[in-house]
């Protein structure tokens, strides 16, 4: 086997030199009753070329967004990733290293994470950010747990129904066994979290209010109004974002008094990859640092006074605080965070704005085109970024089939997540969407 350098002779030499007896003698600690009886029933080992062919066959059985235009978003976004990103994360000093436990020989990873944390702070406007979580959904779940820790006496968390359904489901799973009550806040006719409902229902037992910004329908929530209700009640305000690119254009959560801002970070540097690996961004105010979950990198100096970086404030974490830890997480999505940081660095001030503006321009164009068609209308009359909901009374199944015939994957039918939104489709447009794809989409829809 080409990955195992030890020849039989090497192994024999090591056994002889060690003097511990044969491997079978070493393995007597494994009771014979549970030892291997027969070979594992696995397919015969593949050589590299055969493996390549096999994997190519599997890969080619999937649609992929470079060949088929897609209008799907909803938490995974088809953004263009410059070649630099992949070339750099493939430097094996990055991708074959582990957690930077030994800072003297891990400054590359550590500085990259420190810069990543800074980028997350800049995008969200928050004071501190961690080294990343598993994804946006689990980051929101961790934010809810954190809010519950901070507000010791309050155990209710309000989550808007306009938050990504899978994020809400993840929150429910995480909190199921704990003293936390999750309450769903309805959305109003404009697709925004129902402010009146919030006003009526918030009370001293409301630990936190969580909304998505922009929300699942692509809509820019009325953050100001929510903040004006949460702040006087001393309720924590959590914002979750699925499309991090939007934060390049809209005001950051911090400016609405948000206490914990989380986001999916996939939009920068990470492919959709059939749902993962992605990365969760997690940021908060300085005062809450010690309640924060996840790994943190901090700046310090070495013995010679040289600036360097280390993992820090680890006493919050499971390897030290065990059952009292702020989270059980013991890793981060480091390589995804690196890809995120590289992509954002390439964009810079100008590129970030350009990319966001392009998304907005194309989305508005698409919105206009589709809503002009007979039988299609905009469901919610609120401002959106690069996603929006269209309502139609035509059969969705047939629409999608016709689109596929034209090599287009249409938007997401919302009915399975929101029974009340039958006939509604969530469309997403990115800089990868071409005008001709949009025109074709409109043409096909128009013929339905």
């Amino acid at each position, binding site marked *: 086997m080409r*990955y195992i350098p030890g020849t039989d002779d*090497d192994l024999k030499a*090591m*056994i002889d030199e*060690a*003097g511990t007896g044969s491997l079978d003698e*070493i393995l007597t*600690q494994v009771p014979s009753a*549970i030892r291997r009886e027969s*070979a*594992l029933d*696995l397919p015969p*080992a*593949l050589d590299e070329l055969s493996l*390549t062919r096999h994997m190519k066959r*599997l890969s*080619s059985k999937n*649609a992929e967004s470079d060949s088929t235009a897609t209008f799907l978003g909803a938490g995974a976004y*088809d953004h263009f990733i*410059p070649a630099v990103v*992949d070339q750099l994360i493939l430097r094996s*000093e*990055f991708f*074959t290293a582990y957690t930077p436990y*030994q800072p003297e020989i891990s400054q590359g990873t550590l500085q990259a994470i420190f810069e990543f*944390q800074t980028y997350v702070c800049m995008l969200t406007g928050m004071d501190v950010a961690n080294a990343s979580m*598993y994804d946006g959904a689990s980051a929101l779940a961790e934010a809810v747990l954190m809010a519950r820790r901070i507000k010791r006496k309050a155990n209710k968390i309000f989550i808007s129904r306009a938050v990504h359904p899978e994020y809400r489901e993840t929150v429910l*799973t*995480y909190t199921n*066994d704990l003293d936390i009550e999750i309450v769903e806040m309805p959305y109003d006719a404009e697709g925004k979290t129902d402010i009146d409902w919030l006003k009526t229902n918030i009370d001293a037992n409301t630990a936190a209010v969580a909304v998505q910004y922009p929300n699942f329908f692509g809509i820019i929530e009325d953050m100001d109004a929510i903040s004006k209700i949460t702040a006087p009640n001393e309720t924590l305000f959590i914002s979750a974002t699925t499309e991090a690119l939007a934060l390049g254009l809209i*005001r950051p959560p911090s400016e609405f008094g948000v206490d914990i801002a989380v986001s*999916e970070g996939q939009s920068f540097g990470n492919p*959709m990859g*059939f*749902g*993962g*690996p992605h*990365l969760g961004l997690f940021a908060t105010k300085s005062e809450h*640092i010690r309640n924060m979950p996840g790994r943190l990198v901090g700046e310090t100096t070495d013995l010679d006074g*040289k600036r*360097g970086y*280390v993992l820090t*404030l680890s006493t919050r974490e499971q390897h030290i*605080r*065990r059952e009292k*830890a702020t989270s*059980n997480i*013991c*890793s981060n*999505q*480091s390589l995804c965070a*690196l890809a995120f940081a590289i992509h954002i660095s390439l964009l810079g*001030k100008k590129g*970030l704005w350009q990319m966001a503006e*392009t998304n*907005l*321009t194309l989305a508005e164009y698409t919105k206009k085109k589709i809503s002009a068609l007979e039988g299609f209308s905009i469901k919610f009359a609120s*401002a959106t970024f690069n996603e929006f909901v269209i309502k139609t009374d035509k059969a969705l199944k047939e629409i999608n089939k016709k689109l596929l015939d034209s090599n287009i*994957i249409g938007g997401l039918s919302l009915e399975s997540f929101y029974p009340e939104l039958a006939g509604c489709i969530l469309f997403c447009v990115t800089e990868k969407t071409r*005008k001709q794809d949009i025109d074709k989409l409109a043409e096909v829809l128009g013929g339905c």
Partner: protein
Amino acid sequence: MAADQINKILKAAEPVIFERGSQKRVGISLPDHGLENIDARAVIPEGYLRGEIKGFPELSEVDVVRHYTRLSQLNYGVDSGFYPLGSCTMKYNPKINETVARYAGFTNAHPYQPEELSQGNLELMFELQGLLAEISGLPHVTLQPAAGAHGEMTGMMMIRACHEKRGNARSKVLIPDTAHGTNPATSALCGYKVVPVKSNERGVIDPQDIERVMDEEVAAIMLTNPNTLGLFEENIIEIARIVHEKGGLIYCDGANMNALMGIAKPGKMGVDVLHLNLHKTFSTPHGGGGPGSGPVCVSAELAPYLPTPVVRKNNTTYSFDYNLPDSIGKVKGFYGNFGILVRAYAYILSMGDKGLERASRTAVIKANYIKERLKKYYDLPYDRPCMHECVLSDKTQASQGVKTLDIAKRLIDYGFHPPTIYFPLVVHGAIMIEPTETEPKRAIDEFCDAMIAIAKEAESLPDLLKEAPQNVRFRRLDEVKAAREPKLRWEK
């Protein structure tokens, strides 16, 4: 360019990316969309358009490439050399897996694209579920958890759901003192109280100790096998019997599965729930701390509680099944760290039964070889055959005032990544060495030679160790300062 000049460049500090100067550069080019750019102010409601982001860099592609290339040069990875980090299984990450994982059908597939357009991905997931079930001896598998700790959480939630269904969620979880810190943290997250169990003088759990604490309020025991001392829990069958008799379940942390592939199946030992670390046992890259993947394998009784969705095969096609009324729900968005699954799948296919068995056998032989070579120089608290890793301590060197940390830092001077240190907690000043099967004998010998040289230095030149490392660009970093005055982001 003269060699010393090159050296100077390589040794120069790499500024933080935000300090590279703002020069109106841009590192990307976007396609011309053929429309007139919309005025954002006309779309975004008043007061919701953001201003310029202060401190954001403006760099060209070259600037960015140089910055990250130079950062990479400050790192040490498995491709750089021996990385004997105990319990982390730092094995070689096959290059072909990186190539195949980048095929467009894997990377450019949207998680919500129609199932009929995702058949390759579903087939891969279905097949991988089967392969992991066969290796673990547990028939049902979820691929959703993103890491080992996430798998633990998923597994313990399923255990809780199972007890709830039986009528009593129970209140306690038994955790041996050799456990990873994630085990107690996970138990707390699932609403359980932790009852610690001491390991015995052989370094393993004594069935009598379990007998004593086991009652009908214990939901499960969480154990790692082989445990973090690198020893097989030889009483596992007896322990499983005692726990099962009182209605408890066995959770096995599969972090150390690299010792067991093709040697023994956890499912045969009475384990009910097991998580695997694809980034350890199944060769996917550690990536500087993630992404990993932590599939959970369970017995038939636990299957109804698996997270949604699971992948099913219906004749010749594959589909997601969301119809699991007793499911614990979702533990993350979508279906798991799919890209990592692709790599692990490719690895298992490349290895086959013989390759996996040889990997585990080789890993065990190498760990024992290291243990025997070093035990004359270092304290070996449990002097008996180990599995895939061994644990030494600094007891012998302590009289010179030399601690585990000093030994670890001195190893850096010799060109090695240090082992895991100060874990497991049951060994004071632990040095936990896991060679893995992919290390050539020569590298292992060089490592042992270095460890022996360091043991000698500890006697003759203890100060040299306390000052280590000296041969790398950074010397010891001040962790106290970092914690007392946390500086967690760059600021002008």
